[in-house]
């Protein structure tokens, strides 16, 4: 072949190869599209801070992609959100777009209240697997696994620890690959009954508590994904619960009464008061921690189970869904697309409090950077999204496994086997 032609070919090939990665980096993961026909939408959220961020997002959407559209964004108090949703659904007044939480999704999907967004994902060219099964798995419905929601954010769990207490006990800080045994040792060493300090508190509630430890054994916590069985009496669950109970009985963890309540927030308050060396906390605690903690602290991923070598966090994502009876399904889907897109999620990423669900690395980095200069290992939360456990529980069994099981084992002194047996009776009665 002609050497000049070969050289030319090589140059072309080389430039193509070099150009591709650059292009992949600039290409947004989810692209918004202009709406076909502007109209009116009502939208519900349950947090005023989120409403401010989403409001800005919507303004940008209207300016860029849907001029002439109107969105009536309403905030309903969190405590009554689900009651109001049911009341409005009963009265035929459901908002067009609204926030959804994974444990509640099943009821609305089962009763055809929410709009199947899969046709829209297909039309928009969005591959719904980009979000990861932890974020979107619980929002899938039907035999084909249609995705009914777009995730807004993600939350994972990690351990917050008090560096000053570690220093005082001459202990090295936990490494990212530490195990349950290391954790137990630290908890023992850091407990100081005279000073009224406990080593750890990590069992409270479903999302931040014991199910994370069950998940590390490879067991799906509480209810299996197919919703057929209460898994609390399976070996993995018993192993995790007994491990935690052992720490409690040894005095390394406070009881629910000593913590002041069954919520991880109560444990976190103990941590903030310097009475706890290690606490399990969600990524949503970062702003509070950064603002209020008065000692040196850091974050490390949950410890790994010694046998499976895995450390798993429950992951949860709030979603945007649309009402199946909305008068403007296309418009609703278009808005949801925007809110899930890179452009739409920038507002969340910059806001900081909420980790955005959009999988683009740029967006995730934006979120980490939004906290400013800190020495704190925020990356631990992002790392926890890999090998995470999605939510499989639902509203009807919420209380019995969220707080009642915890109180029975970690306050009323019931044995794990007994408490789990009682809980499974209730859960099995509620399974379809």
């Amino acid at each position: 072949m002609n050497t000049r032609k070969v050289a030319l070919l090589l140059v072309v090939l080389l430039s193509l190869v070099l150009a591709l990665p650059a292009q992949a980096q600039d290409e947004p993961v989810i692209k918004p599209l202009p709406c076909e026909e502007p109209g009116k939408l009502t939208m519900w959220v349950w947090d005023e801070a989120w409403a401010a961020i989403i409001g800005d997002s919507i303004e940008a959407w209207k300016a860029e992609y849907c001029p002439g559209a109107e969105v009536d964004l309403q905030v309903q108090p969190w405590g009554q959100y689900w009651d109001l949703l049911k009341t409005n659904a009963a009265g035929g007044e459901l908002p067009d777009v609204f926030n959804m939480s994974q444990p509640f999704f099943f009821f609305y999907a089962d009763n055809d209240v929410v709009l199947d967004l899969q046709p829209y994902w297909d039309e928009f060219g969005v591959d719904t697997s980009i979000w990861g099964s932890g974020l979107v798995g619980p929002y899938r419905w039907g035999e084909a696994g249609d995705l009914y929601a777009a995730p807004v954010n993600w939350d994972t769990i990690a351990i917050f620890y008090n560096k000053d207490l570690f220093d005082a006990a001459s202990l090295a800080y936990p490494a990212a690959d530490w195990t349950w045994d290391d954790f137990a040792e630290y908890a023992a060493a850091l407990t100081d009954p005279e000073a009224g300090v406990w080593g750890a508190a990590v069992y409270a509630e479903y999302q931040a508590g014991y199910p994370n430890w069950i998940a590390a054994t490879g067991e799906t916590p509480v209810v299996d994904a197919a919703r057929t069985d209460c898994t609390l009496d399976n070996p993995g669950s018993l192993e995790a619960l007994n491990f935690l109970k052992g720490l409690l009985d040894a005095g390394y963890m406070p009881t629910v009464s000593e913590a002041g309540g069954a919520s991880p927030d109560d444990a976190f308050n103990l941590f903030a008061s310097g009475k706890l060396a290690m606490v399990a906390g969600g990524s949503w605690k970062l702003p509070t921690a950064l603002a209020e903690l008065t000692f040196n602290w850091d974050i490390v991923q949950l410890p790994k189970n010694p046998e499976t070598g895995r450390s798993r966090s429950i992951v949860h994502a709030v979603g945007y869904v649309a009402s199946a009876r909305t008068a403007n399904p296309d418009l609703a889907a278009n808005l949801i697309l925007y809110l899930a897109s890179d452009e739409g999620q920038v507002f969340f990423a910059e806001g900081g409090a909420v980790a955005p669900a959009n999988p683009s690395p740029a967006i995730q980095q934006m979120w980490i950077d939004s906290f400013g200069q800190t020495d704190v290992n925020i990356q631990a939360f992002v790392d926890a999204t890999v090998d995470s456990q999605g939510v499989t529980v639902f509203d009807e069994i919420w209380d019995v496994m969220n707080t009642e099981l915890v109180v029975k084992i970690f306050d009323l002194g019931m044995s794990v086997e007994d408490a789990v047996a009682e809980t499974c009776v209730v859960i099995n009665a509620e399974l379809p």
Partner: protein
Amino acid sequence: MNPESRLPALAARALSWLGPTPLSRRKALWGLALIAPNTLGLFFFFGIPVLMAFSTSVQEWNAIKPPHFVGLDNFERLISDDKFAQALTNTLKLIGLTVPLEVLLALGVAVLLNLPLRGRNLLRTAYFLPVVTSTVAASVVWTSILQPRYGIVSRLLEPVGLGETKWLVEPGLVLIPIAAVAIWQRLGFDMIIFLAGLQSIPGVLYEAAVIDGAGRWERFRHVTLPMLSPTTFLVMVLAIINAFQIFDQVYIMTLRTVPGGVGGSATTLTYYLYRRAFTHSEFGYASAIALVLFALILAVTAFQLTVQRYWVYYESEEG
């Protein structure tokens, strides 16, 4: 001039149904006219929803899909439902724990605060405060006070060995703090009604009693209590109706531990029906519970209304 003689026969018969004499008929019409606005308003805005709710009790409805008729299935289920029985027992226990104490304490406080003591207005405001204090604040303070070992109550009870008692978690104990908070919250309300009742006792009666040589306690027993009986009746009836429906205290006191209590130990009938409706989407069943609850309250109130003639003294004959 007899107005009725000019009216057609049917109207005359309708009118005569109102009463035997023209005067009584006019009074009856006045009575009906006076009660009309409130009664019609109540029946429209509350009677209709109540009837709708009761009619749901013979249906199965999850609020989304159309309801379908199931006859008496919900009521059959009630009979064998352990959780309903537990809610019923809890409610009855709460009534026993709250109503007598609440009424007696309110009466006592009202009487004491009716005396011309200095600082009386300030004290009355203090007793009224719980009625207007934020329930969030009440929940935080009472939960904290009851915390084992660290809370004020526990530290006070330590000498008698009750310092570690888990008031809000132990199934057998949780009703006590709930009853205490319920009394705490309602005392001011009952006190106000008692105070109003105490004002309406004519002073001449006390003067006459003093002239007759009655001491303080006798005046209380023979003037105050009987003249106060319509008010006492009112307070008792309202207190029982309220206690049957206790919900808020259960909600706020168990929110931070186990909502409804461990194993449903703090669940009352209203709380139970709320959970069945909004958590389990069983609005038909919840309506059946509401109907049974209503029947219970109605029976107890009807009983109270019938026996009132034995102890309640009305200054004026009715009507």
